[in-house]
């Protein structure tokens, strides 16, 4: 449960090892992009559109260039003229009629038209940040304002933003059997309908985005330090698509990165412009976002409007689910923006249930707002929100206990592998186990007494559930590519046992707060029997490791960790050959355990360190074997992983003020095997905090004119520790069946289950069908009548 997990001194798989990276982070010794400086470096400031949609008729840079210290001003048009390509969207989604999605043009900086407030159109570089700011203020763009599309509900009925994209629709995507679902509804004994909104969120990682671009004219080498969750992917996109530099001449380093939550997956205008400009100026250039720029120009999350209908038979068994969603894509298709409200959303609408017929249609709409892309959970919180809100409502309409209704519809353990009507095959799970444990921890039987006690204090107390599922461990490459992904989604790993026996591990995953340096070392230590402290995890530098896909979608351990297991297996096989030669036996006679190669039926053994040394000093060595003791592996999963669990929230509403207080929260998650429970708990805590933020506080709001109203911490409410109760976190385990660690991933679950659980609790407390997220005080006060 939630008592402190004590560090036992153990360091293998399953041990709650304290994160080795935290000391440097909490003592200010991290090495973030803004901590890095280069001799002769210039400072960049972007000029950003003050209008949500405006034609750029001309840009006058004369005054800016006259500012002392300003070295150059570069415009979006210059990038186009230099042959720099559009920022591509990495996932081709097709409309239900088979047509390719319609992409708007997306030059890195606006060249002829700016399409959202905050879109960069020019870059000023100067000897100091102050001069660059002064220069940016002195760039005069001649804008002609154009009509804007802001409101999502009316976006598809508004005038076109882009020529050739009718109704502002990138696509109308569908999944599932429409006819069968229609028939299920025709036969339904009861139908529950819900109209739901999933509020726009602004990610707000603690470290704003930043980059430092360098060009060496002598060699033609480019180096870009940047806040990326996936430097390998960034290099591929910048070279192959944007064509800033050839791939072999471009090195991307993502050093310590202070949180991403998805927002640092994407390939943005700023780092693209900076690395391009660094070559033009032939000087290193640094850019660090201010928080207000993060609000305006980081990709936002969520932003759906949904109509959903759930059909049931007379017993309450789910027989059909119809979902119609309009998803806000913002002004441009961001790197994975097309896939989030489609393949990462519609495929999850079966939830934990045996609903036999599901049909979902999603309209992806352009608006003159910041691009919307993956944010912690990415599509899966939206899907969970639809399923778990409508299931809870159905239970209320049927007069059934919401736990019972769920239980009766859950896929049972013996029914795995289970193929859903929305294209996934769940490999394993035991959903009732998580539900039962969560009910026990929250003391479900005691709820009515707690509710009565709250009523005596003038508070209304409610309880709400969410039994979520997610598809993680992105992703089986073949399947992903078939569905439109532009890249595979395997991961790379390399283990180098050095001549002295210490170990350098390279991974294509990237840690920006997840704790890979600890967990991955635990995995390698466990597999190779080498002391945890002798193992170093190296990540985030395309100059040091193989191409990899990075960290998002709760994939690092399931995919990146599995690659390391595969590399470790290769090492052990090689080690057996070396040890067998030295012990004058055959490899088949050698076993490996706890770091020792042992000759069967003998007392002879060699440590892995001795074997490593022998491989680098091959005096007595197999003739047909290469020296050295390093192996690499690429691991491609053959299915997604399916973390699942039950979250239960209890809230109290102050009926005089409308203030919602999250009083209790239980998360029981099945993440498969767990490498480090301390880190897993931390991930769940953080995710639940973000989910609570979405449910009660956070909302990215544009006014009708397209100006961002919540552009600072003064107006955008982030959850704080004192807004949250002590979470009660526990787990159940059904190991993933298809990866060598049996792990599923834990990074997003907290943010996926919690909004639905909390909103179910709030509507339960208030006795109303719905209130839109976030349930802010005035909105709640009005929902309960707005009385004095």
């Amino acid at each position, binding site marked *: 449960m939630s008592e402190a997990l004590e560090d036992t001194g153990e360091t293998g798989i399953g041990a709650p090892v304290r994160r080795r990276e935290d000391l440097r982070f909490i003592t200010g010794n991290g090495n973030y992009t803004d901590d890095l400086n280069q001799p002769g470096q210039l400072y960049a400031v972007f000029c950003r559109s003050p209008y949500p949609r405006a034609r750029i008729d001309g840009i006058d840079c004369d005054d800016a260039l006259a500012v002392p210290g300003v070295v150059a001003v570069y415009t979006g048009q210059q990038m186009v003229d230099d042959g720099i390509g559009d920022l591509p969207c990495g996932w081709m989604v097709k409309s239900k009629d088979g047509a390719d999605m319609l992409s708007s043009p997306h030059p890195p900086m606006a060249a002829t038209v700016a399409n959202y407030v905050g879109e960069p159109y020019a870059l000023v570089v100067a000897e100091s940040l102050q001069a660059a700011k002064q220069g940016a203020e002195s760039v005069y763009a001649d804008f002609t304002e154009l009509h804007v599309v802001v409101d999502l509900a009316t976006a598809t009925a508004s005038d076109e933003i882009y020529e050739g994209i009718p109704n502002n629709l990138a696509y109308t995507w569908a999944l599932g059997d429409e006819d069968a679902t229609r028939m299920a509804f025709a036969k339904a004994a009861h139908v529950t309908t819900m109209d739901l909104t999933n509020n726009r969120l602004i990610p707000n990682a603690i470290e704003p985005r930043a980059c430092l671009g360098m060009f060496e004219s002598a060699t033609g080498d480019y180096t870009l330090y940047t806040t990326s969750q996936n430097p390998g992917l960034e290099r591929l996109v910048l070279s192959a698509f944007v064509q800033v530099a050839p791939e072999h001449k471009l090195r991307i380093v993502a050093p310590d990165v202070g949180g991403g939550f998805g927002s640092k997956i994407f390939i943005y205008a700023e780092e693209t412009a900076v690395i391009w400009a660094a070559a033009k100026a032939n000087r290193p250039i640094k850019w660090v976002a201010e928080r*207000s720029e993060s609000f305006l120009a980081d990709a936002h999350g969520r932003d759906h409007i949904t109509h959903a209908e759930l059909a049931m038979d007379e017993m309450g068994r789910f027989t059909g689910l119809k979902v119609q969603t309009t998803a806000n894509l913002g002004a441009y298709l961001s790197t994975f923006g097309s896939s989030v409200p489609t393949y990462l959303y519609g495929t999850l609408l079966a939830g934990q249930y045996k609903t036999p017929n599901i049909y979902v249609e999603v309209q992806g709409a352009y608006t003159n707002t910041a691009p919307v892309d993956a944010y912690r959970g990415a599509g899966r919180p939206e899907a969970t929100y639809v399923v778990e809100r409508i299931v809870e409502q159905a239970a209320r309409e049927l007069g059934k206990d919401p736990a019972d209704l769920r239980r009766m519809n859950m896929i049972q353990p013996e029914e795995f592998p289970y193929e859903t009507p929305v294209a996934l095959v769940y490999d394993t799970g035991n959903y009732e186990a998580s539900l039962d444990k969560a009910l026990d921890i929250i003391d479900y039987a005691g709820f009515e007494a707690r509710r009565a006690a709250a009523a005596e204090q003038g508070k209304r107390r409610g309880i709400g559930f969410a039994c979520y599922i997610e598809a993680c461990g992105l992703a089986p490459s073949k399947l992903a590519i078939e569905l439109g992904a532009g890249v595979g989604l395997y991961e790379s790993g390399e283990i180098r046992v050095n001549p002295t026996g210490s170990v350098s591990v390279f991974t294509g995953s990237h840690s920006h707060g997840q704790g890979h340096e600890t967990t991955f070392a635990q995995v390698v230590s466990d597999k190779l029997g080498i002391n945890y402290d002798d193992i170093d995890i190296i990540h985030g530098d395309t100059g040091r490791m193989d191409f990899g896909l990075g960290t998002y979608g709760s994939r690092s351990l399931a995919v990146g960790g599995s690659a390391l297991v595969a590399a470790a297996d290769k090492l052990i096989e090689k080690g057996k050959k070396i040890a067998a030669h030295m012990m004058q036996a055959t490899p088949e006679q050698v076993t490996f355990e706890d770091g020792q190669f042992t000759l069967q039926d003998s007392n002879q053994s060699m440590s892995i360190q001795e074997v490593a040394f022998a491989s680098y000093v091959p005096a007595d060595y197999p003739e047909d074997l290469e020296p050295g003791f390093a192996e690499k592996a690429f691991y491609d999963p053959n299915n997604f992983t399916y973390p699942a669990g039950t979250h239960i929230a209890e809230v109290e509403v102050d009926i*005089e003020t409308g203030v919602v207080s999250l009083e209790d929260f239980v998360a029981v998650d099945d993440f498969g095997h767990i490498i480090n429970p301390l880190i897993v708990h931390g991930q769940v805590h953080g995710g639940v905090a973000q989910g609570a933020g979405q449910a009660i506080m956070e909302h990215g709001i544009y006014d009708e004119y397209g100006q961002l109203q919540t552009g600072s911490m003064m107006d955008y409410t982030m959850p704080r520790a004192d807004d949250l109760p002590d979470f009660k976190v526990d787990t159940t385990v059904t190991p993933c069946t298809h990866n060598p660690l049996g792990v599923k991933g834990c990074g997003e679950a907290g943010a996926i289950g919690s909004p639905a659980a909390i909103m179910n609790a709030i509507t339960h407390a208030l006795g109303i069908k719905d209130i839109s997220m976030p349930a802010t005080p005035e909105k709640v006060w009005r929902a309960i009548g707005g009385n004095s």
Partner: protein
Amino acid sequence: MYQFNYHKPASLDEAVALFREADDPMYLSGGMTLLATMKQRLAAPTDLIDLAGIAEMTGVQVNADAVRVGAFTTHNVVAGSAEIQQALPVLSQLAGLIGDNQVRNRGTIGGSVANSDPSADYPAAVVGLGGTVHTQQRSISGDEFFQDLFETALQPGEIITHIDFPIPKRAAYRKFPNPASRYAVVGVLIADFGGSVRVGVTGAGPCAFRASGIEEVLNEHLDPSAINGVEVPDAGFNNDLHASAEYRAHLVKVMARRALSDLLKT
């Protein structure tokens, strides 16, 4: 931030002289609003006159009738002062609700009051306790000090030196914080001077004011339920993302009832 000249005078006279000589000067107290505004390039004084070196603006004095707080006193000093906690606990409690610990360590009472931010906490105390704002040249009644959004009775160059707060029989402050900024959406301070009640409201309107309707009924019945029937007109109230004028008017009554309940328990 634009460039500016920095000055740190050692006396009020010197500060005022610097102010008179400069093109577009501003006084710097804790800087919790001003520096952030300057960093955003929304304020561009030519000269910043730092009041940190002026000894006569610091210190807390308590006597039988009043608490005198030097303008340069930080919120955490007021919150943590044993003397103020003893004589005028509501002031310490209010100061402890301002911002976060970093802000309370830098922000000053004089800076807060001089700024007349509509959602600052201290103005509720100045008005609700009937304080007196002293400057280098005169004394201004708390009732007359706050004039509008970021507007006070201060003349250009005038510096708040200290503020006197009469000590009521009992008092209480309730605040409905903005969930994002934790400024007051509405804050209500009620003070019972034994026979007369003062109600100071911040957050609701363009600047702090006395809720005369609530004062009237409480002068009749010092009971939270007496507030129920009071009409709090919302004309001119602030209206933003976090609270409409109507909701603010409602919150004035709720916070007043709660403050009064607290007061009656003391």
